């Protein structure tokens, strides 16, 4: 492999990985926007999405097959199911606590995360589940770069979801309400915006995006595990903060930046896969030291 081809491949790897991070980071950042909560259970919704999709797919693959059509259908159902799960979690666990100290809600989120993980642990006996699809390894070679069809669909799908989200947030009433709530919840309540509904919608969308990512990850990588949400949750949190937590374009950018940092970090001599996480975190810390609200975060001038 030539150096250019290596770099191109790492860029592609970063793009694919970054797409996953971005999808999960979006939910993080949206939920943070409306209720200022770092939803540590968010990664587990990604995991839950994967398992729901696997269940659906194994039920319907006899009819529609285990190719992309089946996966899309499974993804759609997983998004709806996990979106509802997100709403239920918000109503049961977070809503009663909105007046409580913020750190208490954080621990509640951790507890929710543990409940989700251990429920799936009990259901699956802690076993890895194979996500069997009929996707092949086919693809096209462009110059020195070989791109599989799965990668194309994946990145395209992620881009589509993000564009849809952007349109939703900027062009619809709920989207605008969501942004308004993120800026000033109390004012919105005074203006007659139904804040609980907006929060519910936000949880639904954020959770559904995580489920979409979980499904695609399951189909693309081929396995599911009750603990698979932990690491990506951590990474998505990092991505959301790099981009500027609360900022939707920030989450997308942060996801891509983190994906790129990790894939190029693996390739850079002296860093390599051993140190790539250290590399990412050092970059993160430097970003925050010099730009304390992340790459695209609003700089807040405190009003006295």
């Amino acid at each position, binding site marked *: *492999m030539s150096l250019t081809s*290596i770099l191109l*491949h*790492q860029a*592609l*790897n*970063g793009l*694919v*990985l970054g797409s*996953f991070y971005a999808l999960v980071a979006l939910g993080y950042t949206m939920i943070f926007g409306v209720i200022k909560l770092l939803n540590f259970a968010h990664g587990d919704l990604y995991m839950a999405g994967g398992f729901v999709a696997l269940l659906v797919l194994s039920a319907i693959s006899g009819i529609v097959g285990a190719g992309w059509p089946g996966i899309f259908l499974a993804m759609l159902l997983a998004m709806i199911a996990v979106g509802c799960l997100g709403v239920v979690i918000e109503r049961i666990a977070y809503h009663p606590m909105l007046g409580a100290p913020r750190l208490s809600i954080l621990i509640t989120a951790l507890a929710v995360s543990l409940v989700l993980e251990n429920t799936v*642990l009990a259901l699956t*006996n*802690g*076993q*890895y589940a*194979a996500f*069997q699809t009929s996707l092949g*390894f086919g693809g096209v070679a462009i110059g020195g770069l*070989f791109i*599989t069809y799965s990668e194309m669909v994946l990145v395209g799908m992620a881009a589509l979801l993000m564009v849809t989200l952007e349109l939703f947030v900027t062009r619809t009433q709920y989207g605008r309400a969501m942004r308004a709530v993120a800026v000033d919840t109390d004012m919105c309540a005074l203006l007659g915006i139904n804040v609980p509904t907006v929060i519910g919608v936000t949880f639904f969308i954020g959770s559904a995006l995580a489920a979409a990512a979980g499904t695609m*990850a399951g189909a693309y*990588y*081929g*396995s599911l*595990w009750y*603990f*698979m949400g*932990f*690491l*990506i949750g951590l990474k998505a949190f990092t991505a959301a903060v790099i981009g500027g937590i609360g900022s939707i374009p920030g989450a997308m950018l942060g996801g891509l930046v983190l994906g790129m940092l*990790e*894939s*190029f*970090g*693996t*390739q850079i001599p002296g860093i*390599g*896969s*051993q140190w*790539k*996480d250290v590399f990412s975190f050092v970059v993160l810390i430097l970003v925050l030291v010099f730009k304390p609200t992340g790459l695209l975060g609003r700089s807040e001038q405190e009003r006295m």
Partner: protein
Amino acid sequence: MNRFGRLAVMAAMACAIAGPAFAQGTIKIGVEVPTTGAEATYGRDMANAVVLAQDEINKAGGVLGKKLTMVIGDDACDPQQAVNAASKLVSQHVLAVVGGYCSGATLPTLKIYGDAHVPFVITASNSTKLIPANPGNAFMINSTGDQQATKAVAFLAGKGAKTLAIVNEGDAYSQDLANLTRADWTKAGHKVVAYETASSGQQDYSAIVTAIRAAKPDAVFWTAYYADGALLIRQLRQAGYRGIIAVGDGSNSTKLFAIAGAAAEGVFCFTNPTAQFLPAAKAFIKAYKARFGSNPGPYAPLTYDGMKLVAWAMTKAGSTASAKVIAALKTADGVQWLTGPIRFTKHNTLARSNFIVLEDRNNAWVRADK
């Protein structure tokens, strides 16, 4: 200070611990395995093997005229949990312990069993880091990582590989095996062209795959566990890597095929002998299947032997006193066990290498080194 909570908890614990008293006429054996967490499958499989051995021994009259009973301590493959579990076993007055799956979890328990003078037969954990930490009461009946590295280097070199990429997962077991292999491979005059560390649970190996492909190794050796290994294999093949892929004994699982599918075709696995490749294990497999409804897992035969070995040592010593049992274990020799003869080095490790090489043919393991 929290006056109340602590008292309440102490009271509760007193009740919890004052369980079954030390029963006269039985010999209690502890089984330290993970029965929760990601490695629970292995742990339960090992516990099943102990049940089988115990029943056979008891049916044949027990040991020194007493029946064997067993008590499981769940270490969850976590160092701190392992310490708790080991302490609990000791407090329950077990006369010996068999088991030990994750090396990282087994390591801190050595001191606990050592302080309590409990003989400990380690049936799966095989990191070389366990050897210097052994206070003298522990016996490793699985071959150690250095023997696996030797086997791997000889086999891969025999296949004509000159350059090697090694991938581990940053945990005690896989990093130990990776480092030993790197040292042996370099000593054999070959080159390690890539040495990568993945994070456990990372699903995307594409960056590592690209780095490996850029280094053009003749062979790739994955030293960690099957679940992540299957993903690496899949992604290597998906990216078009056509060289040899080999995995260590932690990846000896048919789950590897379920996840990696056709991509695992031709993958080599270095492992201790699993039941289906042991000529003496036909009856064992049959009994296991009859009792538990599934095939014995990779560490079942060794753990079965571990329990039998303890019984043998107690019988030979004519006592359950730990010093005598340990002395007897040191002399273990000449008996043909399920997994072959067991004799110990002066470090209490298995005196021979029991590693064999398997290959995936149509998603089933076959011997590749005969």
